[in-house]
């Protein structure tokens, strides 16, 4: 669905709170997490600062809301069972101000008036909606009754004296001045409406989220039909709220049985078919989400989410994301967007793509207004934002996705070039970027050489519709380096040795020490995720099985990654202490590798992928282990029992699967073929068969003995005197069907034995007896028959001749 997704910027778990509702105050400093046992106030600028206010009630809190007026910011209202409580949050305590009692059943929603600091609206399943003035808490100042219970109440954010309530699938718009008579009534959905929100910019627009798995956008003045619908496929929608910027929506869902996709989606109102972004990470239903800004002049918004998984997460909505919803931020100077002013910084991992995103933000802010196909623009934006900016000695001076240009500086020794890349509209689908040096210290021949390398590299990728910027840059620097190296080899060169740059490169490429391999190449999205378990039949009848140790669990219960790049995604998620994303979207995307330092700290290896769950408990040993990896003495002796409590690598087991094969080595060794003493032969062979557990063959051999009885069949008498019964007109079908059967079950060993037993010796000279019990070969003297069992299957020459020859003779006979 969404082509883009992100994981949270911040994550905190408050398991003990059991909070069922969350609210963020209007200045964005405090989040209130309210549960049955306590109200907890979390300082969003320093999330270690959690103040709990105990609460004694047998009722859950159904909803909370902070006063939206900055002047009265510390006031909040909670709804629990039939009553509302108003608190003032002051000096680390929540002071109970008053309670508002009038509802006769559970209060389902509350909403502060955006225009009057003292007015709160509440609604309940008792079919009443009340307006309260908190200065006069004794009774509501207005009441509105409907026939059905009310579930949501929301004030218009743009114009005063207007609010909306929902009743099952219906929507009512009220003007409190007009008494108990709604302005309008809209049959909005077929199922219950869970969520309601007014547009922050248009006085007539509102959005509803419903159990019927859809979100509808309404202009209530023209309510015959909704202005737009977003379908969430099979998932009931819990909330749909307008974004405070641009024209966007964020939706939260309640998957049935609480399983499945929990992600919030960001939608642009321009496109109802596909979300523009997904916020992935919560393990359970997101109960509530609200917006905040870290500081009023900050460009970025933050989305604060609280989920039933008892985790609070904060997601950054930078200007690039805001732009997706049609919000164009005024040119942001680099500082504001990259600065992390708050205490949060210390807890957050380095924002990897910080520099890149800010760069893109700027471009978008300055020059968005082209008529470029958005798809191509998007793919280029993606590529730019994912590029690894840590290619040694390469600096990306500028990237402009809109003008499809990129300016890169590469330095090697005393050589430096500035390369201009222009991406044609068809890129990366078959069209390669154009390369041009704008400033170089190279001779023309060298220039030509490098341009050719770049051209080849890019063509190779775009022919397969793959992006090529990063490989091109890597090749650019490596060809420059090789030129520099060549020069250094020539004695009269005056090039000073630039040790710093070369050692850096060498350290990277010649790191031949056995170190846990880190994956993280952007192109790894097409390399399949490696097998970590498997079974192969080998040699004759062996089954070799390898796998993960039993105690290594997959970190995600249901998804086995598809491509190696998923590991990178995993790695990033991992660093942010988030669970494995549970969606297949992961496979659609690959991320830029983390900076080298991060990689060292958290090498992204395949085993890490599996051991993750355990590591949380074993952090100490793990970090130690990784530090020591290059020096770990390898255990040469395999018999040494692993001293570590849990082996990282599973055992390889060799199984004897020869019993599963239709042919058997032991039979080949024990079988005898003696047509002069058929009864003895058959019983010996039957014994051999019973020894290996082939009951069918035991039966066959007793049958064979009977079939060998000589008859005087009238039809065959002329042709063959004294032929066995099996070869007469009566017996022949039986033999044929036996041969057929054993062919079908691929038991050519039995087929061969039957052929040898019943062939016509009359047509060929009588064979001499030559049976060697110890040998696996049986060779009638005048034929080249031999069963070389051991080499069966691989050696066609020796093993098969019996089958090629004997059936031939046999068939002559039978036909």
């Amino acid at each position, binding site marked *: 669905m969404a082509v883009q997704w992100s994981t949270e910027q911040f994550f905190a778990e408050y398991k003990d709170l059991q909070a069922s509702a969350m609210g963020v105050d209007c200045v964005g400093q405090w989040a209130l997490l309210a549960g049955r046992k306590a109200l907890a106030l979390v300082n969003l600028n320093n999330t270690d600062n959690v103040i709990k206010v105990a609460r004694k009630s047998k009722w859950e809190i159904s909803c909370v809301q902070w006063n939206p007026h900055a002047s009265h910011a510390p006031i909040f209202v909670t709804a629990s069972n039939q009553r509302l409580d108003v608190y003032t949050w002051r000096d680390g305590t929540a002071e109970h101000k008053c309670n508002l009692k009038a509802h006769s059943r559970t209060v389902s929603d509350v909403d502060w008036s955006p225009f009057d600091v003292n007015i709160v609206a509440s609604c309940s399943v008792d079919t009443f909606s009340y307006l309260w003035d908190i200065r006069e808490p004794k009774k509501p100042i207005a009441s509105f009754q409907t026939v059905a219970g009310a579930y949501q109440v929301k004030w218009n954010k743009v114009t005063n004296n207007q609010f909306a309530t929902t009743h099952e699938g219906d929507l009512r718009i009220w003007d409190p001045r007009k008494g108990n008579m709604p302005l309008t009534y809209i049959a909005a959905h077929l199922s219950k409406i869970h969520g309601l929100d007014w547009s922050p910019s248009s006085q007539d627009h509102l959005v509803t989220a419903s159990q019927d798995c859809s979100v509808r956008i309404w202009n209530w003045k023209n309510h015959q039909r909704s202005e737009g619908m977003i379908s969430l496929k099979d998932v009931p929608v819990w909330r749909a709220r307008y974004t405070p910027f641009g024209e966007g929506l964020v939706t939260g869902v309640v998957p049935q049985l609480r399983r499945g996709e929990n992600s919030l989606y960001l939608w642009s109102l321009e496109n109802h078919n596909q979300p523009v972004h997904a916020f992935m990470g919560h393990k359970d239903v997101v109960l509530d989400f609200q917006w905040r800004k870290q500081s009023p002049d900050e460009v970025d918004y933050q989305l604060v989410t609280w989920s039933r998984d008892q985790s609070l997460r904060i997601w950054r909505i930078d200007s690039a994301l805001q732009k997706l919803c049609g919000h164009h931020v005024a040119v942001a100077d680099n500082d504001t967007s990259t600065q992390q002013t708050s205490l949060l910084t210390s807890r957050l991992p380095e924002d990897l793509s910080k520099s890149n995103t800010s760069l893109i933000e700027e471009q978008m802010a300055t020059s968005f207004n082209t008529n470029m196909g958005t798809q191509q623009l998007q793919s280029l934006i993606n590529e730019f934002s994912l590029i690894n900016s840590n290619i040694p000695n390469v600096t990306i001076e500028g990237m402009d996705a809109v003008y499809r240009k990129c300016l890169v500086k590469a330095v090697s020794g005393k050589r430096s070039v500035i390369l201009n890349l222009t991406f044609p509209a068809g890129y990366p689908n078959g069209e390669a970027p154009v390369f041009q040096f704008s400033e170089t210290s190279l001779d023309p021949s060298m220039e030509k050489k490098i341009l050719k390398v770049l051209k080849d590299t890019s063509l190779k990728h775009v022919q397969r519709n793959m992006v090529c910027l990063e490989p091109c840059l890597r090749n650019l620097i490596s060809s420059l380096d090789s030129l520099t190296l060549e020069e250094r080899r020539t004695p009269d060169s005056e090039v000073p040795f630039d040790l710093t740059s070369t050692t850096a490169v060498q350290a990277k490429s010649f790191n031949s020490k*056995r170190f846990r391999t880190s994956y993280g190449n952007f192109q790894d999205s097409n390399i399949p995720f490696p097998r970590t378990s498997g079974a192969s*039949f080998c040699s004759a009848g062996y089954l070799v099985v390898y796998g993960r140790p039993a105690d290594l669990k997959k970190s995600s219960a249901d998804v086995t990654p598809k491509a190696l790049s998923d590991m990178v995604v995993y790695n990033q998620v991992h660093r942010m202490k988030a669970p494995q994303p549970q969606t297949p979207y992961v496979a659609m995307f690959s991320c830029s590798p983390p900076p080298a330092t991060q990689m060292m700290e958290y090498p992204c290896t395949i*085993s890490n992928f599996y051991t993750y769950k355990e590591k949380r408990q074993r952090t100490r040993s793990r970090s130690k282990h990784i530090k020591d990896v290059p020096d770990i003495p390898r255990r*040469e002796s395999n018999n040494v029992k692993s001293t570590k409590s849990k082996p990282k690598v599973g055992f390889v087991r060799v*199984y004897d*699967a020869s019993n599963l094969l239709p042919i058997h080595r032991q039979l080949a060794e024990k079988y005898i073929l003696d047509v002069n003493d058929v009864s003895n032969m058959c019983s010996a062979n039957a014994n051999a068969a019973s020894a290996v557990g082939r009951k069918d063959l035991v039966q066959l051999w007793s049958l064979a003995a009977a079939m060998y009885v000589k008859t005087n069949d009238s039809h065959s008498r002329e042709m063959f005197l004294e032929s066995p019964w099996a070869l007469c007109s009566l017996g022949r079908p039986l033999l044929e069907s036996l041969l057929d059967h054993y062919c079908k079950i691929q038991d050519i060993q039995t087929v061969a034995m039957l052929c040898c037993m019943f062939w016509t010796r009359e047509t060929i000279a009588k064979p001499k007896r030559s049976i060697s019990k110890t040998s696996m070969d049986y060779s009638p003297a005048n034929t080249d028959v031999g069963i070389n069992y051991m080499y069966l299957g691989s050696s066609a020459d020796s093993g098969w001749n019996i089958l090629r020859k004997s059936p031939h003779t046999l068939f002559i006979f039978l036909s």
Partner: protein
Amino acid sequence: MVSVLNTIDTAHEDMVHDAQLDYYGTKLATCSSDRSIKVFDVRNGQQTLISDLTGHEGPVWQLAWAHPMFGSTLASCGYDRKVIIWKETNGTWAKLYEYSNHDSSVNSVAFAPHEFGLLLACGSSDGTISILSSTGDGTWDSKKINNAHSIGCNAVSWAPAVTPNALFDTGNRPPTVKRIVSGGCDNLVKIWREEDGQWIEEQKLEGHSDWVRDVAWAPSIGLPKSIIATCSQDCRVIIWTNDGTSNTWSSKVLQKFNDVVWHVSWSITGNILAVSGGDNKVSLWKESTEGQWVCISDVNKGQGQISEGQRTLQ
């Protein structure tokens, strides 16, 4: 029914990605993410490390033993885009040849049936398949099938050198044709045939809905049918059969598994298929006389036990 003969602690430092016994079942080679390949002597239940082969600069994905008529020869491929052929001479293992003409990870190597000589097929994520052949005088030729699978090739397997129906057909048999089956990220299975030294696409088998992870052409004992097993990210295993008379392949889905299927392997007689995948489990499958594929046992690796399933041998 199936019993453990040997349990080997490989002492690899990271995940094992492949383990193969040689032709005689006496040497075990394993490869791992720790960039090394280890060769063990596993005769009579022992496990002695013979050699620890280092040369790959990244994880090693797959191994293949050559037929013993070419000596003790092992091929390996890996993430570092290299294919390395190793050989034992007088008890010492050394690199015989290194091929590094792929542009991305090499995911699969397979030696051809020995009748064709020392011939190795390699499938790579750069979408190509290369066929390396030893000229016999120490040099190697390589041929490339370009753009065999767009996005990437994940697996290659050779057709047996035995012509279909060799067991009964005594007439003039056509010369054996070299064929390869391959699977890739385009969800396709393709059959390639060598003709006048060129590899041409003979068949394109569509059936999987996601990346094909492994392909295995069943060994032939001279019966008329040709059989190919393929497995995929879509959790399915498909058995493709060709009756030997026409050029069409019919497909049958073995089963939809609960997890991604990574590997399929045929027994030497081509009647039992071992299936393994992301769930760390192995199951063995066999075609009943009625033409149904039935699971005959599960190998539970965690316990090292094999439980007997429905037995269909008659």
